[in-house]
């Protein structure tokens, strides 16, 4: 079954690209071709333009050609500086996302648009942060918790609160390395400072700072984003959905939600369910409103509401190419500005909503959080009214979609694990069953597969090939972001997919009643993975770096991915990159990232562009860690 089971995930795409040519629409492939051969200096990270003496470019080969920039910065310094700035940008993106969510909790009220949906989670966080909960209104507590979170971005003293969630051994590693982040924005600013001309001139120091900044993302921004989204919108529980462009419906108003912040997408979900909106859709001749998600905002709404997944990063243009999308509503991050021109070829309205991400040529309808529902309805109305303009002769929806089970938050995973707890031996509500199967060897390890799509790699191919190989070798896979959506489209998020797993993993899937690949959410939800790894390490009384676990970004592309990979390493988890980062111009930086960093954090980077070879390396490294641990 395996090949047929998997291969449909890409079908239909070629037809859409042919349609693009016919319709005179430009896609990323046209633009990639127009770029011709990429610049070798940028590709290797040895091009610097941080001051007006430059731009400088130095030779990536030691001892040959220009060895230093005008200021004297070597290839090592330039590469490390560029890398550090990528980490800072990625951290900034996740953190600004989180900041908005914390603000939303701060404005939440009993009769407002934003409410507290998961009181239990709020109360446990209040307790964790020492907020008095006795005889207080839940909203009063929420506002105080939100304020503490908001202070995490710029507090003048101390270090981040969530760091204390890590195993004690890990906290000690951070303490010894002096990379405990202080305040989120501060770490980002410090990197921008230190990478200014004439500041830090030492590669190792820049990597060191990058680690501290990235931790402000994983254990700061992203974790706040996830925790607060759960509190406001509910902690995900397992539910069924469908994925791929086939979820678009010819007979309905198709609205695509693309971007990242659930504060917008949640309201759009509610607005589209509103009877007034439903009525309006009927009036324009549609059978209803069909909401479909894309990228991380798609992950957020599918995790919490089972909203169908139209596709991942790579498919944002393809969705418009179907000619069946009335509106693509976006907020921030990973949105091609090209969508403005592309949607002009069709009736599709490209609607930007955030002042943080305006795009020339788009229809900008600003989303106001203090008036969220009304705001959302205005946007939905714009989409519905556009149904009339659809040109049926231009519509082609590929008939491809797969079933998927999503919604595996840490809480949901633990609840599934309770199914196999023998109540005469162990208490419920712990990660012990997971720790047990790893220790016994029934599962060889656990791997998080995350990241983007990248035209340097065949679309979704690396994601799927690596997942298939790992599950066949009894390694459980958890996934987020566009990797998760690739898995959904390939059918790997079904319980039936355990047929592709090795006997150990298949047995675990059967007993626990889960798919072999677990969708844990959006990119900020990688913090969920940090949490569960940390809980297993704590249960076994060891550090994250001792566990047979790994992180993989097979098709990464964004600076967020760089920040993520760096905090995963800093958290003691080996990270495998399927796309070579722009660091190869410096032997020193490559040596730090793929070798020396292991002595600091207990984990390191592996760079391997061949997915099969990458999977083999992961399996090898997992066995190495098991052996060291004696399990």
């Amino acid at each position, binding site marked *: 079954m395996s090949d047929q089971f998997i291969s449909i995930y890409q079908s239909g795409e070629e037809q859409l690209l042919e349609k693009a040519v016919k319709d005179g629409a430009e896609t990323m492939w046209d633009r990639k071709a127009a770029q011709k051969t990429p610049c070798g200096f940028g590709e290797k990270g040895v091009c610097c333009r941080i001051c007006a003496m430059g731009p400088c470019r130095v030779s990536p080969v030691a001892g040959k050609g220009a060895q230093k920039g005008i200021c004297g910065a070597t290839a090592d310094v330039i590469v490390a500086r560029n890398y550090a700035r990528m980490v800072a940008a990625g951290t900034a993106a996740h953190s600004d996302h989180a900041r908005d969510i914390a603000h939303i909790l701060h404005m939440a009220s009993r009769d407002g648009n934003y409410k507290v949906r998961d009181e239990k989670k709020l109360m446990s966080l209040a307790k964790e942060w020492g907020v008095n909960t006795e005889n207080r209104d839940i909203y009063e507590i929420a506002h105080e918790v939100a304020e503490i979170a908001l202070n995490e971005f710029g507090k003048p003293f101390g270090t981040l609160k969530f760091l204390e969630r890590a195993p004690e051994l890990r906290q000690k590693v951070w303490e010894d390395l002096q990379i405990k982040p202080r305040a989120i924005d501060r770490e980002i600013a410090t990197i921008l400072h230190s990478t200014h001309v004439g500041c830090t001139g030492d590669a190792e120091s820049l990597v060191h700072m990058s680690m501290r900044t990235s931790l402000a993302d994983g254990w700061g921004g992203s974790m706040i984003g996830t925790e607060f989204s759960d509190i406001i919108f509910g902690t995900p529980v397992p539910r069924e959905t469908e994925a791929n462009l086939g979820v678009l419906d010819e007979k309905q108003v198709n609205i695509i939600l693309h971007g990242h912040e659930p504060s917008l997408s949640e309201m759009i979900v509610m607005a589209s369910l509103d009877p007034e909106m439903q009525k309006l859709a009927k009036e324009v001749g549609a059978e209803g409103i069909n909401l479909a998600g894309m990228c991380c905002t798609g992950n957020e709404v599918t995790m919490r509401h089972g909203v169908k997944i139209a596709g991942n990063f790579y498919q944002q243009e393809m969705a418009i190419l179907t000619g069946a999308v009335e509106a693509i509503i976006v907020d921030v991050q990973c949105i091609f500005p090209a969508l403005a021109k592309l949607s002009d070829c069709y009736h599709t309205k490209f609607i930007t909503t955030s002042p943080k991400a305006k795009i020339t040529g788009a229809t900008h309808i600003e989303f106001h959080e203090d008036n969220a529902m009304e705001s959302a309805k205005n946007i939905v109305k714009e989409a519905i009214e556009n149904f009339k303009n659809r040109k049926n002769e231009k519509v082609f929806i590929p008939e491809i979609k797969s079933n998927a089970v999503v919604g595996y938050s840490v809480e949901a995973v633990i609840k599934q694990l309770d199914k196999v707890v023998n109540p005469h*031996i162990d208490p419920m509500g712990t990660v012990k069953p997971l720790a047990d*199967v790893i*220790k*016994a*060897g*029934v599962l060889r390890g656990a791997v998080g597969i995350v990241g983007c799509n990248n035209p340097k790699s065949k679309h979704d191919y690396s994601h799927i090939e690596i997942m298939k190989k790992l599950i066949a070798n009894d390694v459980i896979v958890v996934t987020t972001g566009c990797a998760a959506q690739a898995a959904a489209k390939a059918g790997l998020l079904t319980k039936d997919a355990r047929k592709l797993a*090795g*006997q150990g993993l298949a047995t675990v899937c059967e007993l626990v009643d889960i798919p072999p690949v677990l969708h844990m959410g959006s990119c900020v939800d990688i913090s969920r993975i940090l949490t569960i790894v940390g809980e297993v390490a704590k249960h076994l009384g060891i550090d994250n770096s001792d566990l047979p676990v790994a992180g993989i970004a097979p098709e990464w592309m964004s600076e967020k991915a760089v920040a993520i990979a760096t905090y995963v390493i800093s958290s003691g988890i080996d990270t495998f990159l399927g796309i070579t980062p722009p660091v190869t111009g410096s032997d020193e930086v490559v040596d730090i990232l793929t070798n020396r960093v292991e002595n600091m954090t207990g984990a390191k980077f592996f760079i391997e562009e061949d997915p099969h070879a990458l999977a083999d390396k992961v399996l090898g490294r997992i066995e190495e860690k098991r052996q060291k641990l004696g*399990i």
Partner: protein
Amino acid sequence: MNLFQTIFTGSNQAVSAAEGLLKQAIEQKGRDHKVAFPDTAYALPVIYAATGIKITTLGELEGAIGIVKSLIVEELQLTQALNAGLATAVAAEIIEAIKYAMNETPYEAPCAGHITDPIIRSLGVPLVTGDIPGVAVVLGECPDSATAAKVIKDYQSKGLLTFLVGKVIDQAIEGNVKMGLELRVIPLGYDVTSVIHVVSVAIRASLIFGAVEPGKLDKHMEYTKNRVPAFVNAFGPLSELVVSAGAGAIALGFPVITDQVVPEVPTLLLTQKDYDKVVATSLEARGIKIKITELPIPVAFAAAFEGERIRKDD
């Protein structure tokens, strides 16, 4: 040592023991000497179910050793670990078969050794109707005979069929457990390998009641997992051999509950140090639900006591 490595070690021990015994037996009796268990139409039932081959002579057993060896592939994954467990089971059957080939009555009271086909057929109906809600295999040695008796009597009072292997047999006798087929407590033998006689019961249930074709090992394992509600209690220190035999039980779908510290596998391999909870833990692990109407009477009351004979002295 990691769990899978322990299993492989035990399996290798089992196979070399079998190989050594077989060599000796052939030297003494020759290749053509007859091999059979009494009163069964299924030759050596485990080997027959797994391969479809009926072994009748010592010479043919040499081929069976090859099967055992082929099952031991020392790769650290569950499939290989369970196969190694099955290898131990087959090796145990070879060893037990040699006992019967070398000696007309290798087992004497209280031990039963091989269980005959007629007995299995007689157990079929109560197993199907749920009158026998489960099969407990109690193996090894309890800290004392009172504990052993308590656990066994508890199974007995719940109507389970209990097989005993090892020193626990003596402990049961000392603890005044009444035994016999009618009383649903059957001591098998003192050697670990005698546990194969209960595996043989499960496998023949699959052949007889499940009508599963011989040679289709996967189907037999599916049948035993779904239809034979057995589990194992392994008490006392666990040798590598016992652990690898345990893997064989798990391969057949039978959870193992032990009082020793082992790398636990949820629902399949569990540590329960509290002897008062062993029975409840085991029933839960095997998903055995017992409908009980407890009668407030001063003696144990269960179907297991139906065939009890009251002797003059009692």
